[in-house]
């Protein structure tokens, strides 16, 4: 049934009218808050962002957006940023390519992309912003490729356009790597396609040959089919199959053995004997088996590569989200955005509350509190005032400051730590996967067996000695053996990613399968890395009075009170006075209330000091001149931590805390989650963490040493450990050096990960056993001289198929424990 254009217009009108009839926002369909309802307007909006987006679409004739059944069910959260740093020369150098036709091209990672209508909207940006030649969105990675005319429009204008539609753009930091990967992926796919087509056609020719045994084919045609198979299999080995030969040669040259060596031996010996038999016009040819082998092995390799790529990609996209801008104050007081890479010593930068610093420097104006937990692991934010040094990677949490940059880029403290990270990653010994370890013995055993077969048959029937020895080499080609690990690992990695665990390499899973030593960072890993009310010692009636006073403050401690007492109702406070670095006093319900640090409160009220755990920041409350309550502010332990720790320990892991925070704080947290004081190390610098990990590695050669952390201070230790794990909300440096990244807060995914790794290893071992059994059967047949090409052609795919099914059905990571 065709719908005319006029009909579709009418439908659009209806679709557009409907949301406002039921009171929802026209743009996103969510409920309109009472304060935003405009009584006489046709269109209602839940927020300014949705209104702006609607106006833009309407103005450019893009109302058809509202016909989509599936639209974003979230308000447009536009940042309203200027994106000036997108026009900076340094930014252009880093991310933008100039095309041959004079247009510029960039890849941007968009936030907020999640459905089909987003593709439609983003790809119509060229209609909204003049000068954009094309915009293509890849929905799986939320990546937009933008091509525009730099003489007609600036990139910041395009970025602002995307932002106002609700898709804040971020530069993608893996552009160079991305191009290499794309090339590799395409080459791999071409090889698989060619190998597959050849394998199927060789099988057809082989089928004719096999059936000739039953019917009786004239020798003339048999010869023809042999030559056809020969002609087909030659390019399969020379082109797609070449990867096995080059990698086997590389392994031999490095004097190591891995899976590709026995594969190459089987392919070469089978091909040479088949060629000789074709020319001699007698004896078996194994061409169909060889072609099938090449195809299956390539598919296995591709699957493994793709699983790891997807996980690595997701982690990379996450760190594209870290801020890409710094605000530089010019000589005339004007402020402009530049990329952090463009900061130079001597510049003055403006850092608002909640932003992270882009360079090291000295505060020139303002005073604030700095959260350096990502850099040092310290959980308590420290006060910083004019003249003090602050470092890149720390976060300004209280009030705006201006900083004169003295070290930026390569010379900043973060960069120095990062160099250490690279260093320790380089030093780490490569892990030899189980399958490759087996390969060594395998090659030796097969070659010995082939030699024995040859010698034995030489005395029995010398004309069959060569045939049988070569049949053995072919049938023992470790196809299933080589497939078993990649398949099990890629299935596990795929399932893990769905559970929020990104595994960047298969060897990490293999390492985690055996329990070893586990080092946990405290801040952000075990605790929530935020200021919260942890202890309260005082009567109930004081709470509303305290809260009333804190209600009007934006200080982190005030926020902690508000978050903890959401259910306490209050009245308004009057005459409240904030004293910086001290506390607040004011009048609530006729009482004079003082809340603040002990020295501040003691100066204004009488009463005994109340004892609060020394690891917490104490806050006292006085009412009408009498101290009545004490609160402890700290960093609360994640709710699932004690249970997860207990579970990990039950599975055989030895757990230690390794933190940069004060030793007393680390011990208190350790006690809370059941870790003995002697396993808790506090006050550890990044260097000390690295040394601890390296010492642990030197002690135990067999069991893995695992480091879990979130900060820049953990990055070097994470890179050095046998398996490094980064947790939710961590710093970019830490994500980059980790083998595994947990996207969900809390430690339960760590339990899930280690248990999943153990199950994956079990699947791999079972697969290896399966394929070895098949190989034994084949070897027995070949040694006894009963192996015909038909049996070989049946045995090899059967073994591979068993492994594929066993891997696919294995429950390595299920959503049970999330």
């Amino acid at each position: 049934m065709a719908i005319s254009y006029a009909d579709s217009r009418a439908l659009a009108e209806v679709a557009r009218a409907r949301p406002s009839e039921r009171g929802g926002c026209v743009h996103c369909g969510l409920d309109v808050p009472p304060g935003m309802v405009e009584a006489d307007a046709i269109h209602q909006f839940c927020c300014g962002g949705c209104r702006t987006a609607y106006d833009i679409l309407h103005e450019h004739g893009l109302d058809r957006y509202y016909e989509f059944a599936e639209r974003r069910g979230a308000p447009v959260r536009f940042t309203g940023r200027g994106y000036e740093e997108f026009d900076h020369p340094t930014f252009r150098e880093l991310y933008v390519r100039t095309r041959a036709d004079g247009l510029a091209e960039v890849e941007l990672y968009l936030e907020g992309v999640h459905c089909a209508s987003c593709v439609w909207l983003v790809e119509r940006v060229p209609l909204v912003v003049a000068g954009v030649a094309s915009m293509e969105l890849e929905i799986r990675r939320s990546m937009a490729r933008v091509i525009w005319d730099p003489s007609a429009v600036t990139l910041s204008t395009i970025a602002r356009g995307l932002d106002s539609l609700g898709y804040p753009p971020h530069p993608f930091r893996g552009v160079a790597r991305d191009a290499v990967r794309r090339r590799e992926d395409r080459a791999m796919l071409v090889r698989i396609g060619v190998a597959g087509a050849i394998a199927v056609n060789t099988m057809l020719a082989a089928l004719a040959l096999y059936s000739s045994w039953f019917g009786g084919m004239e020798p003339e045609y048999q010869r023809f089919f042999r030559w056809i198979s020969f002609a087909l299999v030659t390019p399969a080995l020379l082109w797609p199959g070449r990867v096995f030969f080059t990698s086997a040669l590389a392994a031999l040259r490095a004097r190591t053995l891995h899976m590709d060596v026995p594969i190459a031996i089987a392919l070469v010996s089978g091909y040479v004997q088949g060629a000789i038999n074709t020319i001699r016009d007698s004896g078996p040819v194994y061409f169909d088996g060889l072609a099938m082998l090449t195809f299956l092995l390539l598919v296995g390799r591709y699957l493994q590569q793709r699983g790891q790529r997807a996980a690595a990609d997701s982690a990379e996209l996450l760190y594209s989200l870290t801020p890409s801008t710094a605000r530089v104050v010019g000589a005339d007081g004007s402020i402009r955005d530049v990329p952090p890479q463009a900061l130079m010593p001597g510049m003055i930068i403006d850092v608002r509350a909640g932003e992270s610093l882009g360079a090291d420097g000295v505060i020139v104006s303002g005073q604030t509190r700095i959260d350096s937990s990502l850099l040092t692991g310290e959980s308590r934010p420290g006060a910083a005032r004019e003249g003090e040094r602050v470092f890149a990677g720390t976060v300004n949490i209280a009030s705006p400051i201006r900083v004169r940059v003295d070290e930026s880029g390569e010379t900043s403290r973060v960069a120095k730590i990062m160099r250490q990270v690279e260093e320790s990653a380089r030093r780490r010994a490569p892990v030899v996967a189980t399958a490759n370890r087996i390969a060594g013995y395998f090659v030796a055993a097969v070659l010995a067996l082939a030699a024995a077969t040859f010698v034995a048959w030489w005395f029995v029937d010398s004309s069959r000695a060569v045939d049988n020895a070569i049949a053995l080499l072919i049938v023992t080609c470790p196809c299933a053996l080589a497939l078993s690990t990649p398949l099990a690992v890629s299935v596990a990695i795929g399932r893990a990613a769905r559970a929020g665990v990104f595994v960047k390499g298969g060897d990490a899973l293999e390492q985690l399968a055996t329990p070893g030593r586990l080092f946990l960072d405290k801040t952000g890993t075990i605790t929530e890395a935020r200021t919260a009310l942890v202890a309260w010692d005082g009567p109930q009636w004081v709470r509303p009075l305290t809260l009333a006073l804190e209600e009007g403050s934006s200080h982190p401690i005030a926020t902690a009170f508000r978050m903890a007492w959401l259910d306490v109702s209050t009245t308004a406070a009057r005459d409240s006075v904030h004293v910086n670095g001290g506390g607040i006093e004011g009048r609530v319900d006729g009482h004079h209330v003082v809340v603040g640090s002990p020295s501040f409160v003691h100066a204004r009220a009488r009463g005994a000091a109340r004892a609060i755990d020394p690891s917490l920041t104490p806050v006292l409350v006085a009412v009408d001149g009498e101290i009545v309550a004490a609160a402890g502010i700290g960093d609360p332990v994640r709710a699932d931590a004690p249970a997860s720790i207990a579970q990990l320990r039950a599975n055989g892991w030895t757990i230690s805390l390794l933190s940069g925070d004060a030793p007393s704080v680390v011990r208190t947290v350790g006690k809370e989650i059941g870790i003995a004081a002697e396993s808790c190390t506090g006050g550890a610098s990044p260097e000390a963490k690295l040394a601890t990990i390296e010492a642990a590695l030197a002690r135990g050669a067999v069991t893995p040493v695992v480091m879990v952390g979130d900060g820049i201070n953990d990055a070097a230790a994470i890179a050095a450990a046998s398996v490094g794990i980064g947790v939710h909300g961590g710093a970019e440096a830490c994500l980059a050096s980790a083998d595994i990244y947990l996207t969900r807060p809390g430690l339960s995914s760590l339990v899930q990960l280690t248990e999943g790794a153990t199950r994956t290893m079990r699947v791999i071992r079972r697969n290896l056993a399966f394929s070895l059994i098949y190989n034994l059967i084949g070897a027995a047949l070949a040694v006894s001289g009963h192996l015909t090409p038909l049996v070989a052609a049946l045995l090899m795919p059967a073994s591979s198929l068993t492994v594929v099914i066993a891997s696919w059905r294995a429950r390595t990571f299920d959503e049970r424990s999330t």
Partner: protein
Amino acid sequence: MSVLYIVLPLALIVVAVAVAAFVWATRHGQFDDLDTPAVRMLHDDAERKR
């Protein structure tokens, strides 16, 4: 049976053409993104007629 001498090479030529087409498509990025085009074809381009 001698028809095989003509049919089989012909069949192989057809296969070669198919493989060449596949290689061409891969090298031109047809398999780079398998998710978005499935979504994109649902959007007709009526707004360009205006």
